[in-house]
């Protein structure tokens, strides 16, 4: 007879394999655990309700999604694309470079890779494949790769979730994401530049430089959002949760007042979509809350920490192992699930080995986001297959060079903590 914990682990795997939503699979298996261990089954309700009630930080999730929805509804996206085109369109492979630059800028607003791919990604795909400028599969692969930058650069929903499970400061996590985000962008731009020469990609009609100040000015309100957020959070003007609300408010304000572009019905569907996504992510959070309770009752994270520290593992070896583990899991599991269930188990060991929690968080999130474009099971690849209407294997072939440089960025983030922690330390982070 299996002990209750093993039984509940088996139950989660079986139920998830059978296709039950992962949140429900975790709740059901935790109930099974409580039952078998002879504990009060009302604990499941208690953990979920109290977890949601005290998880104030999580309220940032619906608000960041709302901000992205509002921006995708208005013409803010278009203006920013004009701006990007004026800056990098003049180079060979101009539109492809625009794709990278826009993701860097939009990353400062949405905090969700899926929202980026479905919103601005869809638009980039259309632009790049118009008049057969770029092969559809190349455009799709690039769009999937650039969408990854979104949740690395602040604001970032995955970093909010990591802050919740690790108690690391969300403000410093956000700031720590900036350098890795730029690393990704520079790497991708490098690949695009090489491809552009090799495959002779078209140049966009150059926008006269004298028009650049005007275009910058028109895009400025949108460009300023990340600055407003970071200054607000770091300056103590608002909590990160409030900042998410302010981001949505700011997006609404400039869309309606300055750009005059969001209609009432668009606002309604932005609210509704935010509610839908919130509920389906919230279910996952709820499941993780009960299941993490079970894991804690069984003392798994500390047992693992004791076991691993006893083997004289160096921090570097541990980080390599974590990266491999997360990449393998990323091939089969959805990112939020890994962040909520697997990462908390690893945190005590990381702490025992003296690894900085902010560094660990940025590394873990970057790794999990790369899982979104790593074949065979990458959600962003699936989404782009659908948007671009090209076979998955063509996108997979074209995404490989991008993936390669992005793994390079992951290696830098893993082995050079100072690169990640540079900006936070400049702003007063003691770590």
């Amino acid at each position, binding site marked *: 007879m299996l002990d209750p914990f093993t039984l509940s682990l088996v*139950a989660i795997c079986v*139920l*998830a*394999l*059978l*296709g*039950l*939503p*992962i*949140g429900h*699979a975790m*709740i*059901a298996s935790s*109930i099974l655990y409580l*039952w078998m261990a002879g504990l*009060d*089954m*009302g*604990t*499941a*309700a208690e953990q979920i*309700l109290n977890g*949601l*009630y005290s998880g*104030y930080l*999580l309220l940032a999730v*619906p608000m960041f999604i709302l901000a992205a929805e509002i921006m995708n509804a208005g013409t803010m996206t278009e203006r920013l694309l004009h701006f990007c085109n004026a800056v990098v369109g003049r180079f060979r492979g101009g539109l492809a470079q625009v794709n990278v630059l826009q993701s860097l800028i939009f990353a400062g607003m949405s905090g969700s890779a*899926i*929202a980026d791919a479905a919103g601005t990604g869809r638009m980039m795909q259309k632009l790049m494949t118009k008049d057969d400028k770029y092969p559809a599969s190349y455009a799709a692969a690039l769009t999937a790769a650039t969408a990854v930058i979104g949740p690395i650069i602040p604001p970032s929903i*995955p970093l909010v*979730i990591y802050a919740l499970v690790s108690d690391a400061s969300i403000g410093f996590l956000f700031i720590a994401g900036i350098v890795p985000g730029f690393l990704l962008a520079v790497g991708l731009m490098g690949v695009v530049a090489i491809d552009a020469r090799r495959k002779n990609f078209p140049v966009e009609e150059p926008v006269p430089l004298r028009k650049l100040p005007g275009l910058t000015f028109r895009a400025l309100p949108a460009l300023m959002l990340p600055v407003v957020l970071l200054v607000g959070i770091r300056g103590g*003007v608002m909590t990160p949760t409030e900042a998410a*609300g*302010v981001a949505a*408010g700011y997006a609404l304000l400039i869309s309606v007042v300055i750009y005059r572009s969001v209609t009432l019905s668009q606002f*309604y569907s932005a*609210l*509704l979509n*935010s*509610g*839908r*996504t*919130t*509920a*389906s*992510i*919230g*279910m*996952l959070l*709820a499941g993780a809350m009960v299941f993490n309770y079970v894991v804690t009752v069984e003392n798994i994270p500390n047992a693992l920490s004791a076991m691993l520290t006893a083997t004289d593992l160096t921090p570097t070896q541990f980080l390599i192992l974590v990266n491999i583990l997360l990449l393998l899991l990323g091939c*089969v*599991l959805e990112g*939020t*699930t890994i962040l909520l269930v697997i990462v908390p188990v690893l945190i005590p060991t990381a702490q025992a080995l003296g690894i900085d929690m902010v560094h660990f968080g940025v590394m873990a999130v970057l790794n999990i986001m790369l899982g979104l474009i790593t074949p065979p*099971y990458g*959600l962003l690849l*699936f*989404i782009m*297959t*659908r948007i671009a209407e090209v076979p998955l294997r063509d996108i997979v072939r074209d995404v490989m060079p991008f993936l390669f440089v992005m793994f390079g960025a992951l290696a830098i983030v893993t082995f050079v903590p100072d690169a990640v922690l540079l900006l936070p330390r400049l702003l007063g982070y003691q770590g």
Partner: protein
Amino acid sequence: MLERMRPLAGWLYRRGENLIVIMIGVMFAAFLLQVIFRYVLNWPTGWSNELTVVLWIWIVLFGAAFIVREEEEIRFDLVYGAVPPRVRRAMALLSAAALIGLYAYSFPAVYDYVTFMKVQKTAYLKIRFDWLFSIYVIFVIAVIARYLWIAWDALTASTSEGFDPTKASSGV
């Protein structure tokens, strides 16, 4: 009988959507007011803090129970999406049975916990916790009902939709 209920169900679903929109909208407004009140008017904002948390619980549980569509659920779809419809129906039936069994078996304990919470009230708005948490009881009942329907659907195989991975998950 079932056919005649379809327009009613659609009507109820749209009202449910309205409710979610109102809740997200109020939460949004509360965040903005909170920042404005604190810095511009220097008023205490504990109540709005609490209001947003209350709305958050209701949005998640109400939304998960009534609004999120099957294809929007976050699931592990590598196997589920690859098998033929007949196998998928068998899988749906099995997992629904397990879920219904466990949720139903734990229901009395859940009900006890929620009703027991009547002894406490929230700090600012003085909402009794059993009222606040009652959405969980509603959630469990709705989920059981939903999976009874899914199981019935799998048995009778009235719908056999194709699988669409882009709608499969709504991760971040």
